[in-house]
């Protein structure tokens, strides 16, 4: 969390990974607490409405490495990356690793305790260019990312998934979703920023410049976007497969009904988004395309099932006549 004075010119970069918890059923809040206890002694927080949600304490990872850049400039940053894991509906697991880049006040690396006094902040030694760093991280794949936030987030996600509390029986196969994002606080005379890119491998890149939004609220926002984007992609991928095997609704039926059993009811946009950010969510939804394609896809799933029901009702009778 940065204060008002620090936020000027600051840049926060992060990644969100989204996937199914490797378990056959939704887990209880107690199990969620045990899974997300990433820092012994610190608390896992829960919400029960509008749906079960749990968020872990945030372990830190120390880094001393080059910072992202689109232009290829080489700057060194020292500090810590924070990671939090969340579990939504006892089912959908997300990890988010992030750090705020600020210009260092000295041109050398300081004692390590200095950096631990500002958790979740990386100080960029000499020549920080927030624009270049944000573009390098979250605008294209051409830049050098240098700092491996994705690996940190993946490691936390994997750490939860290998827990002995999980039976690893997934009711539904789904690819892990990846978002890479950069938030800037535009100066008083600067316009807001919005850039959204989808990479070849499916990674979503988001650059956002918004004033008057706190980092925790923006984290909630981007996690919510990533979660719903992942739901949509998972449903679309299933429908695509069914279409490829057209005419074999019977064979596709288990995976189609699995969507209803395990996935579709998790669609609950903005459940955790601050009221002030709802207009932004709606704008992003329109630009990225979430709600509209979701409704189309869900209707298609319903149609498939209805069709199947009709065939089933008609089928045997037609055969005997």
């Amino acid at each position, binding site marked *: *969390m940065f204060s008002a004075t620090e936020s000027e010119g600051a840049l926060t970069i992060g990644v969100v990974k989204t996937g199914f918890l490797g378990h056959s059923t939704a887990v209880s809040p107690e199990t969620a607490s045990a899974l997300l206890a990433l820092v012994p002694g610190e608390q896992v927080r829960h919400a029960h409405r509008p749906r079960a949600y749990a968020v872990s304490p945030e372990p830190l990872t120390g880094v001393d490495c080059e910072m992202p850049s689109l232009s290829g400039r080489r700057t060194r940053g020292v500090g810590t990356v924070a990671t939090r894991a969340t579990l939504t509906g006892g089912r959908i697991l997300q990890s988010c690793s992030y750090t705020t880049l600020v210009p260092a006040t000295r041109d050398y690396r300081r004692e390590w305790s200095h950096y631990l006094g500002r*958790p979740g902040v990386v100080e960029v030694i000499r020549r920080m260019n927030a624009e270049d760093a944000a573009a390098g991280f979250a605008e294209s794949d051409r830049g050098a990312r240098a700092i491996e936030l994705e690996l940190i987030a993946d490691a936390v996600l994997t750490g939860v998934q290998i827990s002995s509390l999980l039976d690893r029986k997934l009711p539904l196969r789904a690819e892990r979703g990846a978002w890479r994002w950069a938030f800037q606080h535009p100066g008083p005379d600067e316009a807001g920023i919005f850039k959204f890119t989808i990479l070849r491998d499916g990674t979503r890149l988001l650059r956002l410049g918004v004033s008057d939004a706190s980092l925790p609220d923006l984290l909630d926002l981007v996690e919510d976007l990533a979660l719903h984007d992942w739901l949509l992609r998972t449903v679309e991928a299933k429908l695509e497969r069914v279409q490829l095997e057209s005419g074999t609704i019977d064979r596709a039926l288990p995976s189609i009904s699995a969507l209803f059993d395990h996935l579709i009811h998790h669609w609950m946009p903005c459940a955790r988004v601050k009221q002030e950010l709802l207009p932004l969510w709606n704008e992003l939804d329109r630009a990225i395309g979430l709600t509209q394609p979701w409704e189309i896809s869900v209707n298609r799933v319903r149609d498939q099932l209805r069709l199947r029901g009709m065939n089933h009702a008609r089928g045997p009778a037609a055969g005997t006549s």
Partner: protein
Amino acid sequence: MNGPEVPRLEVEVLTAKPRVEKVPRSHVSVELGHLYMEDLVRGQESLRRHFARIKPWADFVRSRYAPPLRVSTCFLVDDYFSAIATPKELVPELIEAAEAEGLVIDYLARESACASVGELSPAELVMAKVIPDPPPGTNGRRPPAQQSGWLTNSQGMNRPEAVTEAMTRLPNWTPPRQNGAQSHSICMDVQLWDNAGGRRRWSCALLAAVWQLLRLGVLRCEGEAILRPDDPPGEYPDRWDDLPPVVRLNERAQPFFAFGTMTVLETRFAEVEAAVRMILSQVVVDPVVSVQIADQAAAQGIELPNDLVRRVSHVFSDGI
């Protein structure tokens, strides 16, 4: 007719924000020296000599923090590595020797409590807060090193036993380097524990780091402050385990927890304390607790460094 005005709706989404216990604090916690158990059992004369050496430093702190500023004093009994004398024998002797030299021990703590109290292990809690000092080039690609029982401030410490001038010119020898050193390095490897007799035995340096963190009031377990001071028992027990972890000997004492600590020690402890400071430099405080302490300090007009190590002062003296 207009319908009723709809109020602005606010729904708190997180039902359980992390609730963290707030503790009262002194400005400074002064530790009145330290003695190993074998020093503690040398008798009243020896204890009085010890406190006589501490007295001028304690007076100095009191003069800097005159009332209404708050100072509390404490003494840590080394009962972890050996327990030759019992609390029944030792505690009254300690109180008497300090009093004879004009000092009041406000709080008496036992070192074994830094390792464990019942189910709770303060040392384990601290280990969970260690964020290792990253060597240059650390970008998150390699997972953090497995907890090896050692903590370092440098890289390349594994080197031949003796390095000769000739070896430094060998192509396959690279000198160790302190992370973040500007010109020259001071490399340290600190052992945190060993496994003596099949169970984990914490090092003196680690326990002393836990002790500093306790006095700074930054440790919480599930939001609760740990090892809060207790009133003294009616009679001092025969076993250290039966003594509360932190005992309030002076009922008018200022709070045990403090914004900063001052530890007065003989010079022979300098090495251990350098290790303590290195451990502390790699410990992160629960951010919720950090914010709470910063608010407390700001409300009282106290300037508090974010850097935890800078809240910990030491004086090394064998007498002035």
